């Protein structure tokens, strides 16, 4: 029985598109359309703005002739383009960029007393509550958590993308998860 071939990498699909293979782009788009869209919607919390940035990001990729540089993966590159576009938009419209706020991680760290193994807690599945919990996070924590959630990036990749020290990214991700768990905790009726 023939073993199915591994799917082509994002980078090879992009390279094929650059040589005129339009079908390669469709495969690439299908892989990342959902993650990128959800990342932008959750990050800026405005569907219209998210769609605008989403469209600009893909068109920028289509019209560019460049490839991901160095060891950067296509996914890191794509989300970095989207993030830069969003920051440019905020800057252009005089909106304060919340991603650049210096944030004292320790001040916002709260003891996570809801995740003990002895406690029978579950996470809320209510969509509105999930969205509200995400929006309740500080911007930089939310960005790190969304990159982990929707772009499926590892901590070092997030650090490279956001130009943030690795340890800072780790702590932001940890605080974000602690806060989300606390906000979404529901006691299981026994």
């Amino acid at each position, binding site marked *: 029985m023939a073993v199915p071939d591994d799917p082509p990498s994002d980078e090879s699909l992009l390279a094929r*598109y*650059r*040589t*005129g*293979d*339009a079908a390669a*782009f*469709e495969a690439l*788009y299908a892989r990342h*359309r*959902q993650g990128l*869209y*959800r990342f932008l*919607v959750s990050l800026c919390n405005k569907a219209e703005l998210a*769609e605008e940035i*989403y*469209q600009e990001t*893909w*068109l920028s990729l*289509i*019209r560019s002739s460049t490839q991901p540089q160095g060891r950067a993966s296509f996914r890191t590159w794509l989300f970095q383009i989207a993030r830069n576009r969003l920051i440019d938009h905020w800057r252009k419209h005089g909106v304060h960029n919340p991603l650049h706020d210096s944030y004292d991680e320790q001040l916002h760290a709260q003891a996570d007393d809801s*995740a003990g193994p002895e406690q029978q807690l579950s*996470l809320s*599945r209510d*969509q509105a509550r*999930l969205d509200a919990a995400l929006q309740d996070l500080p911007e930089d924590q939310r960005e790190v958590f969304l990159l*982990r*959630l*929707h772009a499926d990036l590892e901590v070092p990749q997030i650090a490279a993308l956001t130009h943030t020290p690795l340890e800072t990214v780790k702590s932001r*991700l*940890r605080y974000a*998860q602690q806060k*989300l*768990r606390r906000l*979404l905790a529901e006691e299981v009726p026994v």
Partner: protein
Amino acid sequence: MTDPRHTPDDELIQHFRQHSTGEPPASLDAFILNAARREAPAPQPSLWQRWLHACQRPRWQMAFATVAGLALMIGVVMRSPVPQPNIPTATFSALHEDAAQPAPQAFSAPAPAPMARIAAAPKAESAPVQAEIAGALADQSVAKMRKRAPVARPSLEQGLREIIRLREAGDSKAADEQLLALHARFPNEDLPARLEALQKR
């Protein structure tokens, strides 16, 4: 099977992934995909296609035609056959030439200058074969010419001298036969008188 690295943080991520919603609008998908198709770079032609494309340009057509014409001419010139000796003509010529002239010289009949140059041109591959064929033909022609050419008969004086030589050598029988043969050839000649005069000289 449980992943030993599975942590509560991973559970939180999975929980969010399971309950995340939101899709880009279909119109946005269509717009982006259409833009991608429209602005996709033209596929780069293969080497063969580029060659064909170059061949279709008039400037290159002239160049290729010139090169092809030259190659054709060189090919025709290099492969033209070596002029074969015309045996019947040679034999015919030999019959009309002086009998003393060597027969193989019939092959050196003057050829047109270009053909002579072609025949003289080096032909590494065919030279041995051609030489062999030419040699065989020459032998054959010589044999034919020897067979067909008239035997050169000695003149009257030569015949008389031969008779004197034979008599001096003591071969009177052969001398008499020679004298009879000369008499048959020259019946009107006074052979004894001429023989005597020659002896006196």
